[in-house]
């Protein structure tokens, strides 16, 4: 393979995965939410409505690109890009198997959070440049909650880093292979349940998902920061949202559920199906997100801020200290 092509292929693969993931997730969301609400979801286009999303994507692509009067032109055009690019970059460090990944990063975990932290800026940009009060309120809410919940999200994964002694996602997975006492898988979800709970709450908030979807609360804010966007600009914002679901769920799988590994399955059997295992686990995680989304009502914005700043951050700090002391007592020279 030529020297130029080799580094470009993984990026193209990531774009492909992102697009496919978007199409799958839209269908999955409609079906899962439909059945949770005792409805059927899409049924007409194709068998059980599977081609519905494809039709919708075609519609989105062929729609007129409406640009309202009074928008801040450059920022209005740039905002979907700034939302989309970090979402794409977040795939770079995810380990799909021992060998299948775009790049191996020493700071993989931190890198993924860092690029995802740029998304709120695109959201603010979209909301402000739209010159629409609903869009602006939605954008400010989204940014406020994402900044607030980034702190507990980062704090919740620190115990994992402390125990493994590395931020490399592959090493975190390698640490979780095998079983304890012959039955319990060595997954961090067993060892660090409080971390996992905090991670889940903060992740839901980071993803702007119900019960924390104040930023695009349809009943109050039309469609939040995306109100003034149409056709494929809207498509990009939506795609990035679904892609973030995938990335966060993949991170949860990597950090707490042993990534591409399975307990009791020998390496020789696992090696060829590892990426499939990883993606399946990730989609189970996304299903849980959707389950929560279909079950719980939306909380109020002030409750959300209180929960984040006054509860999650102190609890995760206390838990972090406790884990630190225990790690020091159990293995004074470091675990790894």
């Amino acid at each position, binding site marked *: 393979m030529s020297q130029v092509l080799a580094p470009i292929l993984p990026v193209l693969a990531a774009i492909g995965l992102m697009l496919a993931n978007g199409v799958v997730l839209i269908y999955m969301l409609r079906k899962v939410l439909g059945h949770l609400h005792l409805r059927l979801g899409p049924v007409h286009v194709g068998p059980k409505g599977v081609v519905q999303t494809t039709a919708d994507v075609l519609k989105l692509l062929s729609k007129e690109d409406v640009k309202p009067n009074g928008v801040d032109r450059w920022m209005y055009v740039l905002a979907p890009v700034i939302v989309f690019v970090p979402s794409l970059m977040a795939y770079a460090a995810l380990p799909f198997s021992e060998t299948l990944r775009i790049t191996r990063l*020493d*700071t993989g975990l*931190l890198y993924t959070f860092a690029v995802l932290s740029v998304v709120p800026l695109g959201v603010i940009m979209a909301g*402000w440049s739209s*010159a629409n009060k609903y869009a602006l309120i939605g954008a*400010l809410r989204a940014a406020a909650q994402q900044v607030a919940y*980034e702190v507990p999200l980062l704090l919740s994964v620190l115990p994992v880093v402390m125990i493994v002694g590395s931020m490399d996602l592959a090493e975190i997975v390698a640490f979780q292979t095998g079983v304890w006492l012959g039955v319990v898988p060595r997954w961090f979800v067993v060892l660090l349940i409080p971390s996992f709970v905090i991670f889940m709450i903060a992740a839901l908030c980071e993803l702007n998902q119900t019960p924390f979807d104040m930023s695009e609360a349809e009943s109050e804010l039309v469609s939040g920061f995306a109100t003034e966007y149409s056709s494929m600009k809207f498509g990009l914002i939506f795609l990035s949202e679904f892609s973030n679901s995938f990335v966060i769920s993949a991170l949860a799988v990597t950090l707490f559920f042993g990534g591409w590994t399975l307990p009791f399955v020998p390496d020789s059997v696992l090696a060829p199906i590892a990426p499939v295992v990883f993606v399946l686990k990730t989609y189970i995680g996304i299903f849980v997100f959707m389950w929560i989304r279909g079950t719980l009502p939306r909380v109020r914005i002030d409750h959300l801020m209180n929960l984040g700043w006054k509860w999650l951050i102190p609890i995760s700090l206390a838990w972090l200290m406790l884990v630190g002391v225990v790690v020091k007592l159990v293995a004074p020279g470091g675990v790894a």
Partner: protein
Amino acid sequence: MSESVNGVAFVILAFASIGGAVGMLTTRNIIHAAFWLLEVMVAVGGLYLLLSAEFLAVVQILIYAGAVSVLMLFVIMLTLRRREDSVRPVEVSIGGGILVAVFGTVMYVAIARYGDRVGEMPIVVPDTAALGELLFTQWALPFEVASLVLLVALVGAVWWSREGDDR
């Protein structure tokens, strides 16, 4: 990575960071200025990456691009009473001019005199764990002082914002 690729990346990033700074200073719209500043921060993160300072680059993006910029945009948007207020005429003042002249002279003299004293790059890039160890042993005191300064700022901000409630 080969030398030429590094060179091209450096030129792009250098122009992006300086151009962004110029854009920030010349724009009349304060929101645009904030986004220009964000661009500068991201470009500087890219420069760190070119120097193989992976951890520093990631932290630069996480803290400056991801948190500080959002905070600044928040403050700007909350203090603007109308959307039109974000555009201001360029104000020329003598004090500002003097400040620019003094700063420019100092920077010019510093670069002209000490510009060639560039530290030698290590052959092996130290990993993040080594950086952490150095930070918490050799540089523990400056690290703690820096965190203390941030804590004082935090307490000060809380005190400042509470003052209004009593009245």
